[in-house]
């Protein structure tokens, strides 16, 4: 068991049988009053984010969660397959388990596969990934409104907003935490 004073970012907790990861936490204490740890946590299975306040001294069970570095192999019929390049061990997961990560996968991308009770439950993709734009309106000459954007589709089918100068076939960097366009890259 661990208690509130040990809460840290990325700590994995077992709450009501579910594995949660601490996204953020803050010590809150009115001057002469009880202390709390305000904790933002993400459910590792559903991706739900909640905020809970724990009284100082409350105890938790740690979630025994294992991370394995793997690469993304392919997706077929809604099932995503990953492989450990060292052991050739494979992991399969449904789109539902992957959540937003599914939008940002590309062949051979290195990811962390998260195992809980021996089962793969989700993957963590890098914060920044490169993707090719497969579809977007052509750039419009003379349109110089600063900050203007248009929709653009990635190979995964996910649509992001990009600046007007981006064309189909361009490679861009995407922030997987927000789904936001970051910059164009030369390939």
């Amino acid at each position, binding site marked *: 068991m661990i208690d509130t004073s040990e809460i840290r970012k990325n700590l994995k907790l077992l709450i009501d049988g579910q594995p949660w990861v601490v996204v953020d936490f*803050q010590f*809150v204490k009115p*001057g*002469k*009053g*009880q*202390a709390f740890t305000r904790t933002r946590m993400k459910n590792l299975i559903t991706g739900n984010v909640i905020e809970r306040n724990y009284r100082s001294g409350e105890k938790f069970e740690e979630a025994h969660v294992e991370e394995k570095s793997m690469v993304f192999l392919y997706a077929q019929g809604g099932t995503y397959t990953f492989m450990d390049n060292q052991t050739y061990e494979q992991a399969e997961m449904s789109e539902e388990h992957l959540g937003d990560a599914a939008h940002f996968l590309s062949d051979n991308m290195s990811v962390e596969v998260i195992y809980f009770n021996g089962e793969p439950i989700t993957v963590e993709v890098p914060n920044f990934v490169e993707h090719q734009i497969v579809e977007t309106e052509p750039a419009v000459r003379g349109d110089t409104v600063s900050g203007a954007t248009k929709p653009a589709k990635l190979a995964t089918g996910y649509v992001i907003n990009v600046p007007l100068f981006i064309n189909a076939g361009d490679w861009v960097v995407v922030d997987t935490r927000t789904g936001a366009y970051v910059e164009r890259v030369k390939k």
Partner: protein
Amino acid sequence: MRKSSSSPNDHEQFIATIKARHTIISATRSFFDRRGYLEVHTPARVLCPGIEPYVDALPAGPGYYLATSPELHMKRLLAKGAQRIYQIAHAFRADELGPLHSPEFLMLEWYCPGIDYLGIMLETEELLAALAGCPGSQGHDWLRFPLPRMKVDDLFLKIAGWKPSVAWDEDRYFSDWVEKVDPFLSRQQALFLVDFPAALASLAKLKDADSLLCERFELFLCGVEIANAFSELTDYDAHCARLTAANQRRAQMCKEAYPVDEGFMAAVRSGIPECAGIALGLDRLIMVLLGCRHIEQVQLFNTV
């Protein structure tokens, strides 16, 4: 040194912080000087820290603690005849660490005989007005005096649906505080929260007319708790009852009971003048005046 001056910009920022702290602290001293206050120093290492259910002292050798507040010693000076006194003291608290908490911090504490908590509230506003103009402070149009005041019962009724003073429930009070009141306060620019439930009186006088309330206020700036003030309790028996209750509450939570400060009790018996007192977190005030969000940004060293 906390800031490892990795870039010239960080270095300039660090020097600017040293200067801003100096300016605010020296303006504080001249404020009290002009008003006839004497600066005093009380022990940092003490045999008896104050007794509060939720304030824990750091041990400092067998039988000793680091002072969690200079309150008891300053009141002993009042009992010995000192009039207006203030202190900028190092205060220490165990297990407090976060954006608004550091285990060691500067506490500005002052006492004024002959006035009550509302009197010291006015003086607090005057101090803020004097400090907000310090160079380094980030424009303080939002500090419009008099600052708004709100009663604890009214605030809880408005955002949590109950009046703590009439239906006291400690656990409910603090969980509503962290769930509802704290987020509400973080959206207010400046606020005096006044008239706390009697159960939270600590060493404040109860209101004569309504003993469910005590004469205590707290000041919040940008959602940050900055100061806590009382019309100070002077009655000897009431002191005995409060300190005993606080130690009993500590025992219920399996916390160490603290010894009662006999020197302080002797002072109470000999007579503390009717007065108001206030403790103000100076690092936090500097933080708010400089527009910082984390106490680390204004403390020059990391003491953890």
